Every structure is written in structure tokens, then in C-alpha cells.
């Protein structure tokens, strides 16, 4: 069995409802098993130890670091600009306009980084430090909750 055929088989199993496939050909045997993902009929487990407050993606990783360390596993702690309100994140002042900032930009204290729109009002979110934009977390148009990290800045 060639690698290409095995890859096709894997894709087939993935897309189908088959959970396990075993094929024997001559003296070769291949077994493909689909891992069980969370299902609609499993009851919620609210009494499990509360997960540390990191982004869900980080929880899935086997070597997820504890809550206080940044998800990237780097030692450096960047300055976080958090949302002071609930609303929708916009990276630019208007739909077709250039974004306020891009990764790598140097920003000044007081410079507008993004907009959080709440109840039809556009609220400009300003940086409270001088430094370099390292990361812009939300997608444009994403819903934002209070305290959510919007931008990470490497202070000058």
C-alpha cells in the first residue's frame, strides 16, 4: 500500500462516521482509528477542576503552560491593552479604510489602536504606553467582552 493510498484512506475515515478501519493486504495490515471528540450526548462536567484561564486553543495542547505564562511559552510579558467594555472590535475607522495599526508599528501613548463599537457608538481604544505592536488578537468584527485582551505591545 502506497503512502498516497493511506492518506486517502485517512481522509475517508475522517469524513465518514466510521470510527475504526482495518485493512489487511498480503502481509501488511493497516489500522486507522478515529479519536472520539466531545459529543452532544455527553453530560457537561461542571465539577471538573476549573480550567486555568487561558485561551481554549492553549488548553488542547499537551504541554499547555499554567495560567500565568503566555500561551507562546516565551518568557517575555507584553503589555496588554484590554477592552473596557462589551462590544464589537473593528481594526479600522471605516470598512474600507486602513487599519489604525499593524503588527510591528510603533505607537505612542494615547494613539488609537482600534474601535470597540457598543450600541451604535464607536469608542476609540487608545494605547496607554509607548511601544511596538506585537499582536492584535481579535478578528475584525469579533464580539468582545469586558477585560478581553485586544492588543499586545512591547513597551519601549
Amino acid at each position: 500500500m502506497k503512502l498516497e493510498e493511506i492518506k486517502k484512506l485517512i481522509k475517508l475515515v475522517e469524513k465518514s462516521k466510521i470510527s475504526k478501519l482495518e485493512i489487511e493486504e498480503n502481509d501488511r495490515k493497516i489500522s486507522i482509528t478515529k479519536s472520539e471528540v466531545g459529543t452532544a450526548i455527553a453530560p457537561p462536567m461542571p465539577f471538573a477542576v476549573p480550567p486555568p484561564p487561558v485561551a481554549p486553543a492553549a488548553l488542547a495542547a499537551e504541554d499547555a503552560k499554567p495560567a500565568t505564562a503566555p500561551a507562546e511559552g516565551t518568557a517575555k510579558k507584553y503589555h496588554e491593552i484590554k477592552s473596557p467594555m462589551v462590544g464589537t472590535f473593528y481594526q479600522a475607522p471605516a470598512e474600507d479604510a486602513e487599519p489604525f495599526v499593524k503588527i510591528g508599528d510603533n505607537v505612542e501613548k494615547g494613539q488609537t489602536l482600534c474601535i470597540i463599537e457598543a450600541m451604535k457608538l464607536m469608542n476609540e481604544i487608545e494605547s496607554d504606553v509607548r511601544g511596538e505592536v506585537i499582536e492584535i488578537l481579535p478578528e475584525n468584527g469579533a464580539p468582545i467582552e469586558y477585560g478581553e485582551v485586544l492588543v499586545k505591545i512591547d513597551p519601549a
Partner: protein
Amino acid sequence: MFKKVLIANRGEIAMRIIRACKELGIRSVVAHSEPDVDSLPVRFADQAVCIGPREAAKSYLNIPAIISAAEVTDCDAIHPGYGFLSENAGFADICESCKITFIGPSVNNIQLMGNKVKARETAVQAGVPVVPGSDGAITDDTDAVNTAREIGFPVMLKAAAGGGGKGMRVVHDEDELLDSLNLVRAEAMAAFGSGVVYLEKFIAEPRHIEVQVMGDKHGNVVHMFERDCSIQRRHQKIIEEAPSAGLGEDIRREMGEMAIKLVKHIGYYTAGTIEFLLDGDKNFYFMEMNTRLQVEHPVTEMVIGLDIVKEQIKTAAGRELGISQEDIKLDGHSIECRVNAEDPENFLPSSGKVEEIYFPGGPGVRVDTALFAGYVVTPFYDSLIAKVIVKSRTRQEAIARMRRALGEFHITGIKTTIPILYRILHSEQFVAGNLTTRFLEEFME
């Protein structure tokens, strides 16, 4: 029916609403403060949005944050629970302007019944008996004296914008009257932003009986019989029962009819509660109306077999009631004990981490709570942490069942009022029934 409901509340009532939503096939979103991020409602809801820091003013009372949370999650309705914004007409109005259904009565009815003077006048107009009192607000000192003389001392001075036992003072004679008047005016101004005061005859040892009502947006109204909430500490209820022991079928029926009269008169829809005072001669008087879901709704649910929160949501969504008054029958007896995170010696709030917890169970026992092992009880919010509700065929059996349930309730790490509740359930007076609101005061001595 609503697709998604935002729950603007926390703790046990948020859990209650999530449960009703789940059964109705409605997706739930919980708006929560930062300290509540690990709470049970946040884990059980389909979605959660952090709306602010721990201070209620910046989170659970933060109208723009709550409306914004409903908008970004595409909710078509908001359930305010009890307390917080549940009786805030301004909030209900904003929901309406933002095309989000407020799960509760109309803005007008919240305003009308929220003003205690207007509520009294409305009751009078509807032909519902009210506590003898001033005809509207007290205008000046002379008015106060004359009215008090007419009604007869002792009288109770009450803030028009108050309620829930706050902004009230008993006056025993004319000498006390004017000083008390100034005091109540000042207190009312400070607490409720309005110094408007009215006067009522003070009923010394009343029984506090309230009637649950439910209306739909098509003019149909039913009552779901009464609850007895006479066991109170500083006007805060701690034990409630349904039905009211020894009330008598005639009075029960009359009270129900009066409640319906009032509710129909104002075109009320969704859930509400009419509070009456019953004096020693079995006269009952309208006291106030709560235009929201109440903490003690479970005891009614247990004896009539209906889900009040589901009915509230359904009627808010425009569905017809689908139940007639004849369908609603009382079956058995239910008691609820409110468990507070307070020191049973002095009722001071107790905070800390819940280490071990075992909830009571078995036949006829229900626990409404958001507690779990590891939960940290904080002093930022109300101290109610659990409601233990029992139902049985008779009051005697319900008492035995509640004693058993309280005995099973195991919790370490924080102090609770379970020991006091246990003692009350064992007191002769409680067992005899016919309790007045003075009971707890005397019992504690």
C-alpha cells in the same frame, strides 16, 4: 419562541433561567462580572460574556454593557432574574428601543407598581382592599397629622419609591410623628432619590401572604394561589410556604380573585406577585406588587405542578397562556428555606471557599443553587447561596421532610444559616403554624 436569551443575573437564579431555557430549546448567554467567570451559570450556559468588574454598578447594573452583550451575541430577549435590573423601568424601556424583548411586564406596569403610592391608588381603583392610609403622598406636616389621626395610631410612614421593607418607620403617637416624618423623608431621599412619603395604618402582627399571578400578552390571566412568607428577618424572607397554613378556603379564593382583578385592571403580562397583609381578624389588604420573578417561586411550582419560569418566558414571547384557572389546583404542601452564607450567631456575611459539599436529596427534595466544591463565596453580592425546597402531602410531612433535608445538607469552608433554619423547623410555634412576621424576632430572643 426566542432563539437566544441573555441572562442578566448570577447565582442560583441564573441557573434556574438556564434550565428553563434548555427545556424550551432556547440558547442561553450569561452576562457575568469578572469574579463570576468560574461560576456554575457561566459553565452551564451556551455562551458567556464578561460585562464588567466585580462592582454591581459596573457589571450587573451596567445597562450599556448588558445591552451590548445581548447585541454582540444576537440575543432576542433578556431575562433580568430578580433584584438588579428586574424592576428597572428604564432598562425595560431601553430593551424595547433596541428591539430586544424584556422578559417581564410592560414598562408602564413596572413604573406604575414600582411607585408604592400609585400602586395603592391603582389597587383602590381596581376595587382591591388596601391598608387604610393616606390618600396619596403626604403633602405637609398638617396633612400628616390629620391623616394619622383619621387612621388611628400606630401608623407606618413609608417611602413611595421604597419597597422590600426598606424606607419604613413605625410611629406610635403624635409626638413622634413629625420627627419621624423628617427622618423618613431624608432616608428615602438618600436611598431612593425621592423624599415622597405616604402613611398607612400599622398592622402590628400581620401575616405576609402573597399571590403568584401569570398573564399573557393576549389578556389572559391566572393566579397560582398563595405563599406565606411570614418568617422574615429585618423584612428579608427566610422561610416560605405554599399554601398558607390555616388560611381558609374562602379567604384563599377571595385573595386569588382580588389578585386577578388588579392584574386585569392594569393589563399585566408575564409573572408577578401581589403581596397582601393579613391582620388578626383575617382581613387582608393589598400591600405592594412585585413585577418580577420572585426568589420563592419554587414553592408554588411544587404545589401546582407548573414551571413558572418557562411560563414567564413563553408569555413574554407572545404565546397564549394555555392554562385556565380551573386547571390550576393545589396539591400538597411545600416549604422553602433560604440558605445564606452568614454566621448563624449574628447573621454577618461569611465568605470563603466551599471545601466539602453534599446537597440533600431523596423524595420531594429540590435544591436550587449555584454552589459547588471549590466555589469561592465572596462578599460582593447577595448572601443567598442555596434554596432548599421540599414538597409532601401535608404540612406536617413537609416539616419532617425539611428537617431531614437540612440535616443532610453538609457544607464546610463557610458558615451558613442552616443551624438557625433547623432550629426554627423544630420550634413548637413553627409547627403550630399561623405565624406572623414577628415570629423570628421573638424566636431569636
